[in-house]
């Protein structure tokens, strides 16, 4: 387990800032103690300094997970965000999409959100903006990319895709072994 290199830190922050913008600062600069990003086997963990000290006694071979896994670096060198990061993205999210109860299940099975299932959307969401998906009673369900801007959504036909799926909490069951 080691610190992220500068390039990788940059990749990580770029991805996070697509969802939460300047709020990334709040993840690094926390009043309740030091929190850091650590890398192990290409996975990035967000962990408190206090917990990190305990973990130092674990041999790298036996190390499985620590703190919150934010995602991993793919073989082609990109950063892939996992659902496990949702807990930190949801409260700070800048652009949100609310999904109707009828379309919740479809999204949780890994499908895109179409216009018919769209409950609400943050105003002035640009096209291809990374968004966090909520249920109508503000339960974070996952995240994705807005396929249309807010203005375009209005005139879209009911079957048109509004949000491309990236990750959802259904993955905790569907993709259990891939998450960590």
């Amino acid at each position, binding site marked *: 387990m080691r610190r992220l290199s*500068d390039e990788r830190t940059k990749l990580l922050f770029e991805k996070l800032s697509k969802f939460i913008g300047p709020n990334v600062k709040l993840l690094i600069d926390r009043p309740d103690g030091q929190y850091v990003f650590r890398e192990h086997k290409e996975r990035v963990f967000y962990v408190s300094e206090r917990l990190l000290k305990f973990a130092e006694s674990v041999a790298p071979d036996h190390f499985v997970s620590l703190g919150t896994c934010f995602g991993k670096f793919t073989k082609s060198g990109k950063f892939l965000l996992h659902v496990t990061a949702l807990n930190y993205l949801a409260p700070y999210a800048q652009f949100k999409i609310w999904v109707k109860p009828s379309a919740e299940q479809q999204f949780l099975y890994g499908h895109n959100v179409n216009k018919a299932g769209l409950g609400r959307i943050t105003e002035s969401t640009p096209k291809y903006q990374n968004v966090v998906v909520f249920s109508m009673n503000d339960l974070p369900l996952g995240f994705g990319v807005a396929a249309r801007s807010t203005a375009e959504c209005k005139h879209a036909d009911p079957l048109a895709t509004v949000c491309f799926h990236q990750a959802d909490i259904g993955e905790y069951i569907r993709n259990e072994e891939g998450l960590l």
Partner: protein
Amino acid sequence: MDLVAAAFEKIEKEKEKYKPITVTKLIDLDYYPGNLLAIDTNELDKNQLKSNTEKYLLNLARDNTQLLLNKIWELPAEKQEEAVVVKLPKQNNYVLPREKHIPKPRPLTKWEAFAKEKGLQKKKKVKVTWDDILKKWVPVHGFKKAVSEKDKNWLIEVPQNADPYEDQFEKKATAKKERVAKNEFSRLRNIAASHNIKVPNMGILTSDKLSSTELKTAEGVAKLSTASLGKFQPRLRKEKENVKQKNIPGVQKRKIMVVPAAVEKASNLEILDGILNKKPKLDVDKAVNKQIFVEQQQRAQEKKNEKPKGKGKRKGHAKGGGAGGGAGAKGGGSKGKKSAMIASKIGKVKGKRKHGGSAGGKKVGKRYSGGGKRR
């Protein structure tokens, strides 16, 4: 006499039933009784073959079989357990042509060619030899030989005019390594020679087409091969930012230093500032969408301002017109004040009546009106 004549007649009749065992052929057949095979080289009667194929072929086959059997019965026969048996000859059998061509002999290696030219004979080597110093049998090859060498050569005499500070053990080890490498090289060269590939006398083989990893390695090496170790090397077009260092031989990855948390935080914040303070590019799509949004906001505002005057009139009109119009007006009227909320509710223009009931009670920022409002 009548009796005899009748008997003859009977025999003749019997004979007529069967075909004669003598068959005449223009050209005699080639017989291979050992294989029970006869080959007929006579010409076929084309007319008959065309007009009466089946019968002609059947007759031909019978005749030829008859001839073959005649030939077989010419061979010495003997009786075994009340059955007459012919012993088929083993010589003069028909030789079937080979399907595949005869395999070529393996080309001689360079050493084998040399040995043949010189007339060198292969000697059988012993597998174990008696070692006088160790007082035991030592194999010529294998790990036990290596172990015994270690036991035996724990001390090496420094030769007369050798550098006294030279490590004789190391010298021996490198000499052995080189011998092994040379053997391997000549083995590969023999393989190449047997495949008709030209091989240079020295060095290794280079291929015409490099693989992508090899190209990347070459690129990385070329980039690093400047006086400043590639620090000021301009980047090529479409070149990826960081060529993976594992591709470059001899360059080791530097370990990331452990730093105190405060320093790490500061550096992280610095990186983050770099990302957040980027000048935004002029995104035409985004700008257009923003403009559309502002215009729609304005239009909605204007309509809202107009509404209070003609509300009663409109309502009445809508009721007369249909339920859809009524719902639209109602929605607009009740939620009009909450337009400041950031979220906006989007209802389908046509499906509004369906969802209007369930969505009406929930938090709604702004409603896009149905058909009634537009009109």
